[in-house]
């Protein structure tokens, strides 16, 4: 590999600093003994202790995990089917349907959030369903997660030689065996990275959650938002630091599941 010149290296370092300094500052201040302001008063881990005794924060954490797991699970199932269908079957207007899939990826969160809020309101008036709460948040998250899962799964399928499935049929495998012994194992890394991506998106989502939450379904991002309005406290720094760590771990998981070079034969 070519060695980079010093200017390129310097630009890269500055860019990374720009991106990560705010996060690092938050992490540092989560260990600051001072309760108010930005003056450094010594190292402490007590804010993490405070956080773990904060009833409200724990409830929010629980909600966040339920929301992320439930929505990611359903979105992974549906998104996988969508990605598989779009790459393996032909139907009229397929291109249009495939393009439609990208809309939730590019649409601004706030539009999605307002649209969902209106939709839930209409449904509530008309049918008396979709009372705002954890379940409406789960549905809301699924709507944007599906697209991400489907994109990842579809990309994985496109990279797969269609002759592999034909070879399995040729060797005596029926549809069931072709899918479970060949297609699914080869799709699996794609499905897993789709699932982790969906989970991370849900974990970090504020806008859609904020609009579709109801009483008692506060999640961590919403809790942080409402706490910050009363001033940044060190335990919020601690909470933010933990959420960043969780997200980084999940993203690392997604990266580890990407196929290594040369794995796919042409």
């Amino acid at each position, binding site marked *: 590999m070519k060695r980079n010149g010093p200017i390129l290296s310097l630009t890269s370092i500055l860019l990374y600093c720009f991106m990560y300094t705010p996060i690092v500052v938050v992490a540092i201040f989560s260990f600051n003994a001072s309760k108010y302001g930005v003056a450094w008063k010594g190292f402490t881990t007590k804010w993490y202790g405070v956080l773990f005794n904060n009833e409200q924060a724990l409830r929010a954490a629980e909600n966040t995990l339920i929301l992320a797991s439930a929505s990611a699970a359903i979105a992974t199932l549906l998104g996988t089917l969508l990605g598989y269908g779009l790459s393996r079957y032909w139907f009229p207007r397929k291109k249009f349907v495939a393009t439609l899939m990208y809309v939730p990826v590019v649409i601004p969160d706030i539009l999605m959030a307002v649209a969902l809020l209106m939709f839930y309101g209409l449904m509530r008036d008309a049918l008396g369903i979709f009372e705002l709460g954890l379940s409406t948040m789960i549905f809301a998250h699924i709507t944007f997660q599906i697209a991400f899962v489907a994109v990842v799964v579809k990309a994985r399928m496109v990279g797969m030689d269609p002759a592999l499935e034909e070879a399995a049929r040729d060797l*005596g495998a029926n549809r069931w065996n072709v899918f479970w012994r060949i297609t699914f194992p080869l799709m699996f890394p794609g499905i897993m990275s789709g699932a982790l991506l969906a989970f991370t998106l849900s974990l970090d989502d504020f806008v859609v959650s904020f609009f579709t939450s109801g009483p008692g379904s506060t999640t961590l991002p919403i809790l942080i938002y409402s706490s910050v309005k009363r001033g940044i406290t060190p335990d919020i720094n601690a909470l933010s630091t933990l959420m960043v760590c969780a997200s980084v771990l999940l993203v690392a998981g997604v990266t580890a599941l990407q196929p290594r070079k040369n794995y796919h034969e042409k």
Partner: protein
Amino acid sequence: MAHASASPSSPDAAAAVELQNVEKRFADFTAVTGINLTIKKGEFFSLLGPSGCGKTTLLRMIAGLEFPSSGKVLIAGQDVHDVPACERPVNTVFQSYALFPHMTVRDNIGFGLRMKGMGRDEIRVRVDKIMELVQIGQFAERKPHMLSGGQRQRVALARAVVNEPTVLLLDEPLGALDLKLRKELQFELVALQRRLGITFICVTHDQEEALTMSDRIAVMNRGHIEQLGAAEDLYESPRTRFVGGFLGTCNIIEGSVTNRGPGGASVTTAAGPMRVEFRKDSDATRRDKLTLGIRPEKVRLREEPGNEQENCFPVTVKELQYIGSETHYLLDCSGLQLSAEVMNSKVGSQGFEAGQKAFVYLPPAGLVVLDD
């Protein structure tokens, strides 16, 4: 629809595969049409043709990966119209090899037997035996991406033949390999076929590969079979201009018949009057315009006219290529371009120089009448 085919022909007991009036149409084009073909048991058969001629489509219809739009496919005398790919007694070596990347070599080869429901121990014995046969025993526990091209090719071959199919289909089996390896594997494939006695049907666009490996070859062009025969028949007596040009090189000479005799005719060409002999079954006896073909190595080049009364013409040497064992000449024969390949069998200085005047003799037996 295909069942109600009017063809009364009964299945041939010695046939491994029979195609009866097979046609395959895709949405916007016809891939193959009017295919009638009988492939004998235990034969090494090749489908040869340029890309897009329909040879792979034909192979895929035998495998059950495509279905004919009309006509019948019979395997071992049985109409396989309703038999899905997974139940046909055929196996395929795919052009891309299509080895399962998440399985070891051993599991790849054992996949077909496992699908048949064979027991673990039996599978192990058979897989070991076949790996020994194609010399890949030491790679048993490797994944396909850790193998070289040649090794993958052997695994693909082993994975197919371990199932002891009635027919083995090979789609450009050596296409992805370099020249040296390809030569080696050509011999190995033939040896393997003789040893196993399985019918091989091989699709290739490489004429040399088809000529060296096959018992019989079907030359395909634009969705139909141009000519069917043994390698020597095809090369020595091509019936069409396409076959003449696709298998090796062929000088093409156009002419019109002036004097018809029994078994032959006199033809007027740009070079002068030429004597040709007709094949027994040729319809050329009735035509007035003829296309003649002659292989460059059948053209005799000499300094003097010689004793022959006919088919001897003065030429000018335009260009030459010295290959070592032979020299290739490009000749001008009264405006007609001819190429000649002359063995350098004499000791010392050979042949002719560019610009030199000389004579060619085109032996009537070497001149074949080609259909368009």
